């Protein structure tokens, strides 16, 4: 897959639109999932995902190929998502700003202990600061290594690990509240 990504990226850089379309198809679910878990708004997620791929197309010349194409896409998607959330937070302070907090619509799990526990975890996830939430999602759901996450977010590995540990602590606390 890694080689495929790079070969396709090289073809796309050379102007092969079909190669780029294939890269979009291969990575759409990953980008969508990350952004959706962060924003909780499906329409916004689709817009940000589209914007991520559009930016990738425009900046293909900047992709050096020393990392996976998906990692490069994650870095674009995470930047756009964090910018969106920061803007939204700023706007929420204004009288006309949006106040509502969106939450992704999760599929109801069969193996969940109870609806209350799941509610507690969801609330705890939503309450995480955006950067901690981003690190947590990249690690837990996207299964990336701490080194990869550090490269994607432009942070040190130790900072990323600290963010992850803090996120886990908060989630544990959220889970305990409903036990």
């Amino acid at each position: 897959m890694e080689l495929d990504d790079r070969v396709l990226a090289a073809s796309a850089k050379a102007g092969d639109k079909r190669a780029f379309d294939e890269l979009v198809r291969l990575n759409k679910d990953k980008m969508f999932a990350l952004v959706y878990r962060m924003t909780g708004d499906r329409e916004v997620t689709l817009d940000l995902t589209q914007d991520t791929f559009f930016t990738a197309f425009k900046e293909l010349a900047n992709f050096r190929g020393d990392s996976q194409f998906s990692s490069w896409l994650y870095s674009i998607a995470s930047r756009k998502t964090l910018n969106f959330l920061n803007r939204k937070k700023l706007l929420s302070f204004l009288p006309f700003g949006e106040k509502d907090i969106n939450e992704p619509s999760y599929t109801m799990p069969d193996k969940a202990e109870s609806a209350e526990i799941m509610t507690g975890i969801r609330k705890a996830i939503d309450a995480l600061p955006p950067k901690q939430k981003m690190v947590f999602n990249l690690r837990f759901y996207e299964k990336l290594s701490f080194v990869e996450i550090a490269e994607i977010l432009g942070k040190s590995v130790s900072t990323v690990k600290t963010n992850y540990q803090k996120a886990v602590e908060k989630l544990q606390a959220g889970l305990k509240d409903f036990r």
Partner: protein
Amino acid sequence: MKCEQFKSNLSLRVGELFLDDEEKMHLNSCPECKQYYKGISALEENLASLEIEPMTDKEFTNLSNNLDSAIEESQSKGVRYYNMLIRYGASLAAVIILLFFSFFHGFKTQVTKPINTDSLLTALQVPDTTQVSDNEQIDTPYVNVLVNNYVEDHGSSSSEMLIGDLSQEEMEYLENKMKAGDIL
């Protein structure tokens, strides 16, 4: 192994929870860490069960279409700018070059180019040191005729000359002639 270290290790492994031999030994001997491990395991399980609805085919089709439109628009915009550059770029460059050279040419003529009066006087066959600029020429035959007429008519050493059409240089030329004694 200390409990703090055990908990720190585990909190970093949420998502791919495992225990090494040392940690297993600690877990069996520490009830508090055993409890912590149970809590972390439960958290991991619950988090893993939180699945989101993936992008539907319809959503992907819309996204693809919108993306293609955005790419086409950006490319056509790029082509438009390129065509404009090709169409007007050469004309613009020519105008800039012309302005550049005309400016420096004028500057050089007016400021840096010395007026070679000697060669001019030689070309005009004027034998004295009359100073002239390069953009005014002394009409030598005309001056000579005037001088001759003046001498014939007046024949005197009067310094008054009624020659309104003469330029400053021509006047100076005549004065020099008079001073040199060519005109009495």
